């Protein structure tokens, strides 16, 4: 299959083709950037609290146990839809209280059950984190996850 091709032709196809696909890839991500900012996420609602919530999320590296929109570790539950799972669409106050209470009682210490550490989050940090989850839950993810189990 390769006999008809000279070394230099192969090299030129590699450089030319790679450049072409690189330009296509970057162009599509530029468009995706625009799409994310204008359509699939709530840019206007990305307030101080949501930003702070993302910082809390990162400070404690939650992603190394949980997944968020399916990415992360697979040791603990998906949190991209934790807002829906706690009934946030129908009763936001109860969902907020429920998520905060759940984080506060960790670690459970139950033998044989995976333990989440106590990160000592303040009430303000917990609220910011919940705001971040709520904001994330409204990202247009093309219908993923398939159900509330995440």
């Amino acid at each position: 299959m390769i006999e008809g091709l000279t070394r230099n032709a192969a090299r030129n196809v590699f450089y030319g083709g790679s450049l072409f696909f690189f330009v296509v890839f970057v162009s599509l991500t530029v468009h995706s950037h625009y799409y994310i900012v204008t359509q699939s996420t709530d840019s206007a609602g990305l307030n101080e609290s949501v930003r702070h919530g993302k910082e809390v999320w990162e400070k404690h590296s939650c992603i190394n146990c949980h997944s968020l929109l399916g990415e992360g570790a697979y040791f603990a539950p998906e949190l991209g839809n934790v807002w829906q799972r706690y009934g946030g669409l129908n009763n936001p106050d109860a969902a907020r209280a429920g998520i905060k209470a759940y984080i506060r009682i960790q670690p459970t210490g139950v033998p044989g059950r995976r333990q989440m550490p106590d990160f000592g989050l303040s009430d303000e940090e917990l609220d910011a984190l919940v705001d971040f989850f709520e904001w994330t839950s409204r990202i247009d993810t093309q219908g993923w996850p398939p159900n509330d189990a995440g």
Partner: protein
Amino acid sequence: MKYETQKVAYPFFVAALLLFVAQIIFGVLAGVVYVFPNFLSEAMPFHIIRMSHTNLLIVWLLIGFFGATYYLLPEEAEVEIHSPTIAYVQLGIFVFAGAAALIGYQFGIHEGRHYLEQPLWVKILLTISFLMFLYNASRTLLNGRKTAISTVLLLGLWLAAIFWLFAFYNPANLALDKMYWWYIVHVWVEGVWGLIMASLLAYLVIKLTGVDREIIDKWLYVIVGLVLFSGLLGTGHHYYWIGTPAYWQPIGSFFSALEVLPLFAMVIFAFYMFWRGQRDHPNKSAMLWTLGCAVMAFFGAGVWGFMHTLSFINYYTHGTQITAAHGHLAFFGAYVMLNLAIMTYAMPHLRGKLPYNQMLNMWSFWLMTAGMAFMTFTLTFAGVIQTHLQRVMAINFMVVQEDLELFMVMRLISGVIVLIAVLMFVYALLGRAKEQVPAEGAPHIAPAAAV
């Protein structure tokens, strides 16, 4: 070893091997937590173990690539390394930064995006070291003969450094954060690292088979062309469900399915050249790792990647143990085995001995490969069950996890086997040289003839 400065590679390989052992120890610890969830839950919670495991992997693979580059560059360029001093300083910075990050993690000092947990100052040190390496290697290349192998290798390493710069960009918008995060992670392992892999394999194949460079070069360009033609737009398979447009579903499905082609081409390439080659190289274990790398990369990255890459399948499997299965075998086949192949080839030259401890090295090959394969099977079965129960039947995550316990026990056992194999490998390379060549491969070729 024709060139004096090739010995620069030696401390790189030693550092890489030691960090490899540490990486696998953290891996086994994580495996223990899956079986006994209360283990270390206070002293070293799971997220710390996991970031130690993944960061050590990246750091030692990169140190291995640096060492491999310093080893082959003088032979390819036919000149000495521009500055061995820069090389040693650069290694020192890299190891120091990696070790500082690792120790900091144990005290909860880290950032929060996976694989990019290093504190900012560590990221800066890693970047400085990487740039020193690129300067040193590029100067060496420009001083001498520019072969296809060394050019493609350095292109891969330069692009890896450039895409790494996205680690410094962390937008507040989560969807943007995720989209550019893959600029590093996917474009590295399924893009530009493919150039590093193909060029290092081509180097090994030339050395071990003696096949004409003209033929090897042509294959190399075809393979790396396929890598980037499929791999760049193949990034789309990470853009299905994170807030990116729907057109990524057909684009990502189509191009990431094609990512199997370069991996398959590497298998054909390696076996065809060994079949064609006339040279009976005494380093049989290097040959085993080289062929093994191509084969396991094809299964781990190619077959296991294809298994869940189509968007309508990924809709159900995304973020389950299927991903873990693929990730483990892909990294092992493509990049771990690649590093072990080049170390197995280079170490006898660096230590000035005949190929040695070959039997132990080959035993470690089979044990490690079998262990990783078994681990992948157990995680795959766990992932299939998880996908069905959680994604189809909508059963709660933690309830489903309890049903996976049997697989996690078997995964732990395979992890322990891998650790034993790794220790055997390290001893085979760094320990006392006992055997010279395998029994049937009597030393009818002097090592000097087999450079």
